[in-house]
Structure formats: C-alpha cells, structure tokens
C-alpha cells in the first residue's frame, strides 16, 4: 500500500511538472496555432539562465529567479519577432521545421556553452517545506513546485480574465479574424503569448532543474513528453494541460513501478496514438477536428 501511495505521489508530482511544462506549449498553440518543437530547449534555457545567474553572477535567489524570468520573457519575444513572424500564413511544415531548427540551434548552443554533463544548483530551499506524513515523504522541491505552480496558475487566471491584454489574447485564440477586425493588435498578441510561454517554460525548467539536475538532453526530452500531455488534455486547453500532465505522470510511474521500467517512456506515446485515433481533440479541447 505504501508503495502504491508513494508511486501515486511521485506520479502526481511528475505529472504536475509535465502539466506546468505543457502550459507554455498550449499558450503558444492557442493563440497562434504553432506547434512548438523547441519547447524542451526553452525549458533547458530557463534552467541554465538561472544556473548562470546564481553561480556565475552570484545573485541572491529571489533576484536570480526574477532575472531569469525576465530573460526568458525577452527571449520569447525575440523568437517570435525574428523567426515566427515572417512565417505567418505559411504552410504548416515550414512552421514546424522552423521550431525544429530552433530546437537544434538552441541545443547546440547550450552544449557548446555548458556541455552535456549534469549540473546541479546549490541547495537553497528551506527545510520546512519537507512534508513527512506517515510513510509518505514529499521532498521540499515538490512542495515548492506545487506552490509556485499554483501561484502561476492563479496569476495567469487573473491575467486572462481581467487584464485587457489577457482578454485580447483570449479573443485571438477564439477567432483570429474577428479579433483582427475588432481592432486587436494580433501581432502583438502573438509576441506576448510567445514571451509568456517562454517565461512559463523558464519557470518550469528551473523547477525541473532543482528536482533532477540540469542536463540538456534530459530537459529537451521533456519537450517531447509534452505532446502526449497536450493531446490528452486537449491542444488548446490550459487546464487540460495540467490534468493531462497528471494523468500521464501517474501512468508513467505506475507502468514503471508495476510493469517494467523500460516501458515507462513509451507508454505515453502508445496512449497518444490511441487518443488520436479515438478522441483527437482530447479531454477538454475544442471539437474542431476535420476528417478527410
């Protein structure tokens, strides 16, 4: 029973992280329908920015965190402005391959600068976040991830619900042409959604880095894990991304724990094919799939 509970807790926390990582992905897709294959690299860049900020620039943790988020925000803005904007209206394969090219470029750059080894952050989380309850042990990282994730979800909820930019973004996601005709600056919305997505990715990258250490290859592999998560949750639903992440996380740990550890990494993709065949719009996505 305790094995089961521990697996459940592990699955939920990993899944929550998947969900957090997928959130940025969904945000980009929702507003500009771009499938971002460079998402894992954005996660890794966030993690490495934070590493550079605390070890190389010796900034205090809170400042380093804010600086990293600001850096990611600017990076997302730059990516949209210089790489994605010329491709608005182009054929799907060009957009997909552009993000694949970006992924490859960022990965090469990070390998050149930081190498392929595992890096770790110095210990900085306070001890009281460690929750020990009966046989269940939740390390401080998970608690911190949960708190930060919840905080971000709330902030974004408020942003999308009440701020004018957030409402513009929702309107573009809903119907691009109608939003354009009503005077919404669609290009600015695209830029902003890329910037926010990169920020969210950077934040999840830091959390992942604290949890498992920072390694370019591992973090960019997470970028591929995002696909089953978002398809399960629905490609354009932010809440769905979190739920999809939780389900995929639990599925992974349970297959790893009860069936075989090697099957663990493939199960999400088998589920993915199954969902695509049966219910392609996912659990919470908009039912707008065409069948030809």
């Amino acid at each position, binding site marked *: 029973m305790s094995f089961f509970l521990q697996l459940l807790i592990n699955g939920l926390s990993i899944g929550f992280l998947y969900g957090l990582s997928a959130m940025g992905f969904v945000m980009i897709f929702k507003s500009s*329908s771009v*499938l971002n294959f460079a998402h894992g690299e954005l996660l890794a860049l966030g993690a490495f920015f934070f590493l550079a900020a605390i070890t190389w620039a010796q900034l205090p943790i809170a400042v380093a965190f804010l600086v990293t988020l600001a850096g990611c925000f600017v990076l997302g803005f730059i990516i949209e402005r210089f*790489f994605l904007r*010329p*491709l608005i209206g*182009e054929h*799907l*394969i*060009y957009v*997909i*391959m*552009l993000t*694949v*090219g*970006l*992924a*490859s*470029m*960022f*990965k*090469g*750059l990070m*390998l*050149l600068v930081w*190498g*392929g080894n595992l890096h770790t952050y110095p210990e900085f989380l306070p001890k009281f976040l460690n929750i020990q309850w009966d046989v269940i042990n939740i390390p401080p990282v998970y608690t911190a991830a949960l708190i930060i994730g919840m905080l971000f979800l709330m902030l974004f909820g408020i942003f999308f619900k009440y701020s004018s930019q957030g409402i513009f973004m929702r309107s573009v996601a809903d119907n691009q042409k109608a939003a354009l005709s009503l005077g919404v600056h669609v290009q600015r919305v695209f830029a902003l959604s890329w910037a926010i997505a990169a920020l969210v990715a950077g934040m999840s990258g830091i959390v992942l880095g604290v949890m498992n250490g920072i390694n370019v290859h591992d973090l960019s592999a997470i970028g*591929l894990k995002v*696909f*089953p998560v978002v*398809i399960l949750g629905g490609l354009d639903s932010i809440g769905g991304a979190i739920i999809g992440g939780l389900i995929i996380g639990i599925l992974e740990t349970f297959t790893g724990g009860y069936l075989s550890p*090697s099957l663990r*990494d*493939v199960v999400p*993709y*088998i589920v*993915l*094919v199954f969902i*695509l*065949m049966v219910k*392609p719009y996912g659990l919470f996505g908009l039912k707008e*799939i*065409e*069948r*030809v």
Partner: protein
Amino acid sequence: MKKFRFHPCGNYHDNYSQELTIFETDFGRFWLCIGIFFLFFILPFAISPYFLYVLNTIGIASIAAIGLNILIGFTGQISLGHGAFIGVGAYAAAIFATTLNVPFLLSLPLAGAISALVGMIFGIPSGRLKGLYLTIATLAGQIIIEYVLIHWESLTKGTMGITVPRPSIFGFEIVSDQRFFFVIFICLVIMTWIAANIMRTKYGRAFIAIRDNDRAAEGMGIPIFGYKLLSFGISSFYAGVAGALWAYYMVSVTSEPFNLGLSVEYIAMVIIGGLGSITGSIYGAIFITFLNEFLRALTDMLMNMGVFAEARLNVAPLREFFFGMAIIMFILFEPRGLAEVWRIIRAHFRLWPFPY
C-alpha cells in the same frame, strides 16, 4: 531523322503529354547522359576512398530523401517517423541476410516491402487526422518503433546490434567502397527514374491533388485514404531500400542512428532541397551530407590546432547548431530550396543577356 528540340521562346504546348515531359529539350537529355557517364565511368576511378565513402552516403541518403519528398512534398503528409522506417529497412535486411540467408538482390526489395508495410500501418491515422495531428501521430510512431527495435531482443539482438555479411551478386563479392558505389548509384538511378515517372501517372497527380486541396480532391473522386496510405507505402519503401543499403554498407546495424534526429535530418534534406522536387531531394542530401563532413573536418582541424584542447570540443554541438541554422535560413530566405535556386540560375543564363 528526329528533329532536335531546343528551348522555345514561349509556352507552345498543345497537348498534355508535352506538358508532362521530363526533358523539355534534347539538351537536357544530352546533359543527363553525360552526367551518368561521368558518374559511373570516371568519378569512381578518380577520387580517393574517403570521397567515395562520402558519395556513397549521399547516394543512400538521396534514396530515402526522394521517398520522403513523395510523402511530404507531393502528398503533403508530414512524417516525423522516417528515421524509424529506415531503421526498419536496415533491420529487415540484416535479419534476412543473417538468419534467412536471403540473397542480396532479393533482400533489398523485401526490406523495402517490410518497411512499406510498417509505414502503411503508421499511416493509418492519416485516415482520420491531418496536419499537425498527423505529425504528432507519426512522432509517436517514431518513438514506438525505436522502442521495439531496442527491446524485441529475440529478433533484433537489442543494443548488441547485428553484423551483416558482405553481400554478393551472382557470386560477385561486393567488398570495397568502389563496388558499393556502383550498387548504390545504380539503385539511386533506378529509384529516381521510378519516382519521376510515378509523379507523371494518375497516382502522382492524385497525390498532388491531395496536397493542394484534400476536399476538392475527394470531390473529384479520388479515394483520399487509399492514396494517402499508398503514399506512405511508397515513401517507406524508399526508406526501407535506403535502410537495407545502409545495413549492408555499414556492416553492423544498431538501433542508435535511427532516432528522431535522423527523421529531422531527412525532413531538413527535403526542405533544403526543395519540397515537391525529385532532383531537389538529391541536392538536399548532398547539402546535408557535405555539411556534416565539413563540420567534422572543421572540428578536427580546431582540435589539432589546440584551440579547444582543454574543452574537448565535440562535433555534436557544432553540428546541431549549424544544422538548425541551415534549416532556419532556408525556411526564412529560400523556402523552396536549392531546386529553386538552381532554377533561378538556369533561367538567368538562358535569358542572358536580356533581363527577361
């Protein structure tokens, strides 16, 4: 006596078969003959073994790239699983050669057929999905096939890999790079010829119709699902043959090279060469292979000069970086690829000295 055709000074086609012709002028046919003569009778005897190796890799890559171009460039279905299909072909050839003792000439098409079968199975989602959903489905296919290749140990020997015996055609052993050169390039010429002609038949036109507008194609009576599956099949057949040649040429087969990176590399070849252009796929294969070799030489040189002696510079990151940059530059500045660049150059010389 046949009248030679030269470039007309306008569009004077008056029936469809003239529109369909591969060589608009006899000049093109003439240059192709010279090119093939040069390729088979001069090139293999004039260059060093290293360049023969590079050319052989280009030949294998070209076959797979042509196949992928049929799928992406002509039918408009994006597949991220092509690396795995090549892997299936390589493993199929290796298993045929070791456990079943199938002769080389038979095992090439058989490996292609098995790959085609697997490709069609993973093309089934295309019946319900299109665009990015299909892309994600093929991504899942890539990862699942990779897993199977590693973990079906009784058949693929897992991470150990399979050692393939030297092939022979009617008792004639193919051992050196030079002999492989002939095998690979004869395959390439045949496969290019087949691909160029498939595109002129009813099937090729149906593929193009599906790419341009699938609903209109369905409205005109093209059974879309069947043709999409056929396209997946043909494309994977090419991948399988390329994989089989790879297996024989590289002697040992492991699952490592057939990862998502390889799929991406082949899509890059197709885009850099030019979507929807058979010759473009060959240009793309040449470009990417030379880029790889150039970067390898560059890192070697930098290592020898001692610039990066401490950091132990590896070829992988540089390769990743320039590879990504090449894709991005082509998409942003010449999305129709090298085939288009070549067309522009040719048009320029044809019209010279007039501006148009």
